[in-house]
């Protein structure tokens, strides 16, 4: 299937419901991180997490999302994943999407690695038969060996990362969305992740990767999208965008 992702004028507002919101307002109005605060029609206090975002990704695009904490990277990934329907604007998406925003999704610490492979695979839209078919490959990729028969609570964070990543990418999705969580992988595995991502991009899918690991972004991505306070402030070749990010933060 032809992978395609397009956003037109996408805005995402988070209403703040908690009672503390009123007093929060004063402190939030003058700060450097996070989205813009506004009021919506019902005069509710809102955080505008994404503001009028126009983006277009096509097959073979490998996009790095860059921005400070709270700039809207994760929100944008969730919009791309179809989780958040934008408050305003449109999104069009074709192609099977796998999102790896949080590695602990559907992980039951008491269950064995094998059981968790099954559950996570189900969430990705695979049938039990398809998961069994891919099990050998997943086993090989994780290099966890006999640990897969043990409960996941015995795993280290890095081992869980291996498990989650192997399952998520076993299915050759058309669109892969990833939030940064490479921190826990050891150098060898991060390298393996990089190679797998490169393979994936060779097959001409769309990769959107949010990370603060600038060297990883430089190696894997071709395009960069810089977000500040929910707005896309730069969109172009990764090196240019990263240079701009460096100069703005430095």
């Amino acid at each position, binding site marked *: 299937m032809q992978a395609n992702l397009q956003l037109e004028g996408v805005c995402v507002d988070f209403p703040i419901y908690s009672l503390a919101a009123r007093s929060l307002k004063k402190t939030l109005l003058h700060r450097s991180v996070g989205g813009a605060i506004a009021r919506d029609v019902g005069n509710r206090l809102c955080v505008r997490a994404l503001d009028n975002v126009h983006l277009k990704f096509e097959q073979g695009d490998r996009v790095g999302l860059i921005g400070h904490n709270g700039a809207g990277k994760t929100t944008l990934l969730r919009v791309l994943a179809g989780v958040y329907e934008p408050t305003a604007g449109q999104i069009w998406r074709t192609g099977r999407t796998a999102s790896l925003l949080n590695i602990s999704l559907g992980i039951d610490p008491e269950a064995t690695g094998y059981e968790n492979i099954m559950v996570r695979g189900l*969430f990705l839209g695979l049938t039990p038969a398809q998961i069994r078919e891919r099990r050998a490959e997943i086993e090989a990729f994780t290099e966890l060996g006999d640990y897969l028969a043990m409960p996941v609570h015995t795993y280290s964070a890095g081992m869980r990362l291996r498990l989650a990543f192997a399952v998520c990418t076993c299915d050759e999705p058309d669109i892969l969305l990833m939030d940064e969580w490479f921190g826990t992988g050891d150098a060898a595995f991060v390298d393996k992740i990089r190679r797998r991502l490169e393979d994936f991009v060779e097959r001409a899918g769309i990769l959107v990767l949010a990370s603060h690991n600038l060297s990883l972004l430089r190696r894997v991505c071709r395009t960069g999208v810089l977000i500040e306070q929910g707005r896309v402030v730069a969109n172009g070749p990764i090196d240019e965008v990263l240079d701009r990010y460096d100069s703005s933060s430095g």
Partner: protein
Amino acid sequence: MSFPAPASQAARAVSDIVEGTRAVHLWGPLGWQDIRKRYRRSILGPFWLTISMGMLVGALGLLYGALFKAELARFMPFLALGFIFWTFISNLISDSCRVFINAQGIIEQIDLPLSVHVCRMVWHSLIVLGHNLIIFVPIAIAFLIWPGWTGLLIVPGLVLLCLNGAWAGLLLGLVSARFRDVPLVVDSVIRIAFFVTPIIWMPDYLPSRFRLHDWNPFYHFLEVVRAPLLGEAPSLVSWLAVLGISCLGWVGTLLMYSRFRRRIAYWV
């Protein structure tokens, strides 16, 4: 490349429900996983459900039977089935309130039809019901109860209960995701409902002028599943009440779900 115009919110809500219900391969195993998760590393596993229900029904049956000076052969099966199905109904309702809140991690990450979580919940409750119903077998044998063909009326009764559980899940799940007090309110209503609904007492213990339970929806929901297994056909009033609530519930739910489905991911 041109894109189709986006579907209306109502169409999306309906397709969410249809797609979610069809995803049996997803909510089937997940419902079982919920059971396994709870009873992991226990030897009897989910049969603890059966055992604890058996002990409860046995103890209460003897106590209340003596209190009400009830004829045990009539009271015990009534109490057992009442308790088993009440557990099913009340679990459905209180789980409904938390169906989206508990699925937060999934909802915020994967673009799944939200109704999958509701199907998973209903399925999980059905599995628990299956385990609990085992208790009725020895009781039916001990008191020589054979429902006969009337017993088959349990099928439409259960289907109706599940349909109602499904709309309750969508509606209460949605409202609770936004207003976190709702689950607490609902829980206290359920606790009161348990005592005012004929479960641990039989309707004919009351003088006829106190027939308030005719206005109690929970009574009718219980009747359409309890009566068939006792070998009695549920009354027409019960069927109509349950059918009416099903229709009203689904209409209201579809309206609310169309309007607010897209907000759920923001609320959880």
